């Protein structure tokens, strides 16, 4: 079995505030906003603006860190050391920050059997746990859309369904996450090349290079990208310390993040967390270049479709019906 088990109780995000960083902004929940700043806040912030660099609390090394693609091996090692120290200070744990490169001869693709999916959202929370997503404000890479049987009209779908039991009569479900397009509209718009496609087909973000312009979010037709509108809050005891530089290492505020097919897992040969957790086995993952991989057998024997194919984004995320 997998090294990380996701049971129901474990995956439920903490609703309480006990383990929320007390220094974090005092918000009731992820969807409330700061009220109008009062005069005292103004004075305080006026002092704060004097030091733009202090605000960002960067060390010089971090400030001048290069784009990951341009780093030498030594620079990568140095960066990882610094990140580990930083994370230990923040979360009190030893982190593994990997920088494993792509495995030769791999091109990852994903299959999702929408005939099978029951809309239980186990994948959503497994993903949050595995990938250290902010619990407040809430970031969830996977959206599970519920359609009424009889159409696939996105405007008629909802992601907020909450019945006692799933699946519900008369509905079907379709999870949507980053589709890891072969012709991604998001990477080409980035003004600083902070996001790119790795040789194994994974679309990644260098969180330390992203300038936070959110152009990629406007460009993505699948809502596959998320922005840390505030400092991410992850309870210390829920943090996953097995990370990858381009994957699930803790992020900072005001940068974009996204699904990476669990790069920290798949580059070590493991299935992504969402595949491991799916109770109905609707989620499939594998190597497109291996003719015997599960994903290839699906493509060859089943009817597959890709979301919004008319946009020529060429997703490597295949929906299928395994009748």
């Amino acid at each position, binding site marked *: 079995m997998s090294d990380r088990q996701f049971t129901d109780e474990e995956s439920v995000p903490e609703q309480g505030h006990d383990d929320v960083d007390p220094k974090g902004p005092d918000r009731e929940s992820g969807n409330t906003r700061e009220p109008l*700043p009062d005069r005292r806040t103004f004075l305080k912030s006026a002092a704060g603006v004097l030091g*733009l660099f202090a*605000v960002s609390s960067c060390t010089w090394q971090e400030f001048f860190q290069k784009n990951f693609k341009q780093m030498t091996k030594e620079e990568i090692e140095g960066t990882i050391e610094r990140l580990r120290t930083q994370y230990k200070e923040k979360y009190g744990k030893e982190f593994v920050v990997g920088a494993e490169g792509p495995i030769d001869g791999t091109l990852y693709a994903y299959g999702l059997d929408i005939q099978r999916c029951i809309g239980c959202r186990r994948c959503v929370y497994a993903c949050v746990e595995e990938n250290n997503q902010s619990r407040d404000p809430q970031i969830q890479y996977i959206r599970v859309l519920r359609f009424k049987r009889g159409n696939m009209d996105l405007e008629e779908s909802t992601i907020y369904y909450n019945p006692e039991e799933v699946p519900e009569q008369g509905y079907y479900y379709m999870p949507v996450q980053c589709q890891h397009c072969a012709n991604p509209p998001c990477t080409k718009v980035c003004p600083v090349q902070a996001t790119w496609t790795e040789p194994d087909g994974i679309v990644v973000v260098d969180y330390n290079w992203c300038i936070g312009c959110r152009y990629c979010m406007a460009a993505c037709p699948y809502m596959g990208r998320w922005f840390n509108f505030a400092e991410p809050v992850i309870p210390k005891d829920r943090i996953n310390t097995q990370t990858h530089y381009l994957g699930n290492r803790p992020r900072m505020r005001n940068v974009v993040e996204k699904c990476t097919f669990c790069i920290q897992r798949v580059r070590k040969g493991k299935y992504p967390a969402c595949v491991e957790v799916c109770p109905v086995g609707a989620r499939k993952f594998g190597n497109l270049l291996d003719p015997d991989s599960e994903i290839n057998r699906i493509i060859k024997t089943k009817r597959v479709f890709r979301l919004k194919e008319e946009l020529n984004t060429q997703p490597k995320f295949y929906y299928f019906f395994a009748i």
Partner: protein
Amino acid sequence: MQRSGFFVRAVKTLVTGPPVYYVWVLVLLTFACVGIAAYSKQLQTGLIVTGMTGYVSWGFYIGNFTFLVGVAAAAVLLIIPAYVYQFGPIRDIVIVGEALAVSALLMCLMFVTADLGRPDRLWHLIPGWGILNLPTSLLGWDIVVLNGYLFLNLFIPGYILWKAYHNEPTNMRFITPFIILSIPWAVSIHTVTAFIYNGLAARPFWNASILAPRFLASAFCSGPALVMLLYQVVRKYTKFHVKDEALFKIAEMIAYAMAINLFLLGAEFFKELYSDTHHLSPLQYLYAGLHGKGRLVPWIWCAFAFNVAAFLIFLVPATRRNFATLNVGCVLIILGIWIEKGIGLIIPGFIPSPLGEVWEYAPTAVELLVTLGVWSLGLLILTLILKLIIPIETGELTKDARTAA
């Protein structure tokens, strides 16, 4: 000796003025400080203090940016009629227009920076040091053309005024190519800005090739309207002369531009309404509301009414030639285009979301204050520039004037 003399006298010019000048500058400075304080709050907490969400990921800042790019472009495009019709001494018009362009551009850059999550990483955009993703990123290209345009608009008036200050004749053979170059450059800054949105297949509201022409047409309305108001203010408080005829000519031009703008809007409307696909949804959200949500509906109909009213005012010679109605028209058109472009063009692009959700957007107090701050800073820059250059332009501030004094 001479150079330091210029700076001393420049500062002297800037700090002396009638009481209304001091009040104006002080008000702007106060608002600018308020804006800076609000921005620092945003820096410390993150963009969560804005109304933007994962659904509507661009908002008020980018809307104002888009509007101001249009102003910057159109201010310079006024050179065309001035040049074609040989309307008075060309350099008068060029210089005030370019002063407006410079301040509008600086405001654009401030708005983009305010919208950035990580302004501390701006250096990533500098080619060589960071990586500017050219040619594929339209935003990268926009940064290049905006900065090039800024340089051009600093260089041209800078040269002309330097010559004027030293009482030397302007070498038109030298400067005309730059003036001519600034025309296509003005068009290109606005076209490229339109392309930023236009190129996104994920957002059908923007993904229509009519977008860039619409941008230009609406810029030709709002920019000149601002210039007209500016000329009247300048004319009132300084010895700078602008003929009435010039203003009426501009008003006439605005009427044509507005006609084109309304025509293009109609074309867009026809295409979406008649084909009646899902691509209609953003337009429906904007003009009628979608799934019971229609926050922008009153705004956009106001904009439409303003634009049509202003069009009629500028079309009829009697109202065009009357300063009372002319100024009403100017204000209407500035407000109309600001709503249409700043709000009505950016926000509906995100509604409904690519996965069909309708989540509305409204700017928060922080966003409004930062916006106020940027506008105040921009107007302050414009005021100071004009305060400095108009005496040079009118011959009050020259090298010789000092020796005479």
